[in-house]
């Protein structure tokens, strides 16, 4: 059993154990820290940077940084909020995100975070990069317009020998996620479903699925992302 320690998030004291990351400690205490590329059970990718918090004046990703006794964490300064909004705005302008026609709209984590942070229009210029839609696979369609290159599918979707179905290709601003053509043929229904599930946006879609939930009843239509974590926190406080 790991030792119980106390940490401070936005000057408020919380208790946790030292085997936790900042993100885990915050979540169990009902403090919401936004995440996008983070995927519990897989090695953290720390590529989206949206969970950045300030620890002793240094920006660190909450999903990968372990807590320490007495650690002072800033999670809601103006600076941090500005950075998080910027990360989201970059994603909206880097890809081509046509929310009104997207199957994932209403259930999309990127969109949900932008709602939470009340982004009305991005400060960055739209890139309108040419991105392809790969419909060569029998089970899934990969729409690169919507891919935010979070690496979740690369990390999570593997076959029984541990071989990756998805991988990064190229580098820098040309970086893309690609599906292995050959291995892709062996994609089972379960894995295809899992790939769609693991994709935080509408980039991986299982064929003949989408628009299943009516507007108004989708995941983030009425309740903002992170509300569940915050409610748990409030309940805990009442106890």
């Amino acid at each position, binding site marked *: 059993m790991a030792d119980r320690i106390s940490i401070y998030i936005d000057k408020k004291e919380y208790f946790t154990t030292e085997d936790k990351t900042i993100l885990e400690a915050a979540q169990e205490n009902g403090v919401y820290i936004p995440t996008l590329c983070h995927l519990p059970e897989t090695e953290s990718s720390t590529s989206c940077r949206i969970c950045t918090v300030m620890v002793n004046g240094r920006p660190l990703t909450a999903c990968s940084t372990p807590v320490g006794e007495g650690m002072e964490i800033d999670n809601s300064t103006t600076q941090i909020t500005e950075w998080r909004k910027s990360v989201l705005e970059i994603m909206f302008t880097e890809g081509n995100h046509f929310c009104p026609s997207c199957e994932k709209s209403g259930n999309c984590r990127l969109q949900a975070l932008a709602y939470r942070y009340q982004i009305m229009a991005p400060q960055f210029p739209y890139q309108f990069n040419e991105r392809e839609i790969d419909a060569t696979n029998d089970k899934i369609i990969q729409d690169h317009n919507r891919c935010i290159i979070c690496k979740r599918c690369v990390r999570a979707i593997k076959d029984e020998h541990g071989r*990756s179905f998805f991988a990064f290709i190229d580098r820098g601003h040309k*970086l893309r996620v690609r599906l292995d053509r050959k291995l892709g043929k062996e994609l089972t229904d379960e894995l295809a479903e899992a790939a769609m599930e693991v994709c935080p946006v509408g980039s991986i879609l299982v064929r003949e699925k989408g628009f299943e939930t009516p507007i108004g009843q989708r995941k983030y239509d009425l309740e903002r992302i992170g509300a569940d974590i915050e409610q748990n926190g409030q309940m805990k406080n009442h106890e």
Partner: protein
Amino acid sequence: MTQHELKIICEKNHFDRHSLMDILHEIHDHQGFTTEEDIRILSENLKISEIDLRQTISFYHFFACSSRGKYTIYLNNSAISNLKGREEIEKVFIEEGGCVKNGVSPDGLIGLYETPCIGMSDQEPAALINGRIFTNLTAFRAKELLHNMKKGLPLEDMYTTVYGDGRNAHPEMKSIVRNNIRRVGPLLRPSEKMQVLKNQVSQMSPEQVLEQVKLAELRGRGGAGFPTGLKWQFCRMAEGKKKYVFCNADEGEPGTFKDRVLLTEKPEDIIEGMIIAGYAIGAQEGVLYLRYEYKYMKNYLEYIIQTLREEGFLGKNPAGIKGFSFDMRIQLGAGSYVCGEESALIESTEGKRGEPRSRPPFPVEKGYLGYPTVVNNVETFCAAVKIVQFGGDWYNSLGTDESKGTKLVSVSGDCRYPGIYELEWGFTMRDVLEMVGAKETRAVQMGGPSGELVNKHQFDRILCYSDLATGGSIMIFDRRRNVIEDVVVNFMEFFINESCGSCVPCRNIPKLLKEKLDKILSGKGTSQDLADMERWGAMMKINRCGLGHTAAHPILSSLKNFRSHYERKLRKHTDFISDVDLLEASKEAAEYTNREPVI
């Protein structure tokens, strides 16, 4: 390659995916690129998916999936190369050689590609042709080279100068590179092979060695400046069945070439330093990660390693030290600046794309293959040898209060004597400029593109970690040069090309900043654009690694130190000018429908 040939290569590498870099290098040495069929066969042999293989191949500048010509010219496109006349050379290759920029000539004979700094800033323009270095290129030399290529001559017959000085002429190296050593100190003075290991280390405990390094207050010489003693101590304390010592010879910061000279003239010292580090931390194995651009040294370095092995300095009980064994190998890189970051370098050595890891855990706890690993710069190992030889106290007495010892700097650009200078920390910029014969200097880039662009009012600043820090690069620009056009633009392009692309800000912000620069240079910039650049640039500090943290520095530091150069170009009395050029935007449809575009 045939299935059989590939299988033999895989077998030699124990069908281990971690040896992918070596496997790919062998294929490239054989035929210049990896074919679809090669990828299929490798995928079967190494039991990884084809897309996983492509992930590694597509990351590196010098790996290819299609032919890059019988002769492949990688012409350096650094800012220094530009001011020494790169453009003229490129023009000759294109106009007289039928080359295509970043492609292969239609006859498939010559490929011409741009490449970032190849570590020859003191003898630019320079190019890498089929792994060999050609320096001090002129239009005439370029024509000669084209002529020889068309005749089908082997590369070694194309040299028209004698081999370089010192050990550049070593039979295992035979390169025309010159050392240009201009000022020597303890590191560059002649030394006797492995005498510190024999005479001192053999009499010391690992703790005593560590103690001396800590006493010296040596800091990492690659640029980041982490205390070496502390790094070694962390690794020594870390638990692991095995431990590794890595020498970072991925000298990629544009304008730096001091490691090139150390690798040429002092390989025994570097190796001795690695053995000492291995002794101090309890490591048995070492890896020297050599950047691809220095491939011309690989045979030579391997020869040195083999000789040392035969002389009993590597392997079991080096120099007769009981209870200790240490051996090493070379890992060749394949063209990626970010692999100079220690965890990316480890990833690369494991046969993967060179993406910096998220930390913690740090390499000293979990490094190569998960084992505790110390990664130090070439120069750091050389310094460690001198520290053990003459004592931490002695080393600590050199330099300034907080920057101890000497530093090798690589000076290039507009000056009389470009080359390597070994300096005690504490000289002013003005001293350096005088030493190297620089006149009418407008700007000095300290520490490469990731460092700071210094203006002439700052020449009294001091070379040390707390003021003008440098991993070794000093690039000088005189008043003929435009700070934005000749320097900042080039550096930003460098970072755009070298980002691994993983972190959202690093993948996008440099490109967005470059677009802002273009806007300002086209006369459409406003004060709002400068404010945006500063705000966006500041966001780079949330990236994962050092490249990401510093990739906006060319803009941020020039905005700070050369602001008037920007302000001169701005449109006054407005804070908004549209990026949309209506004439340009309506041109295509107008032409297609036979109409005049709208102005």
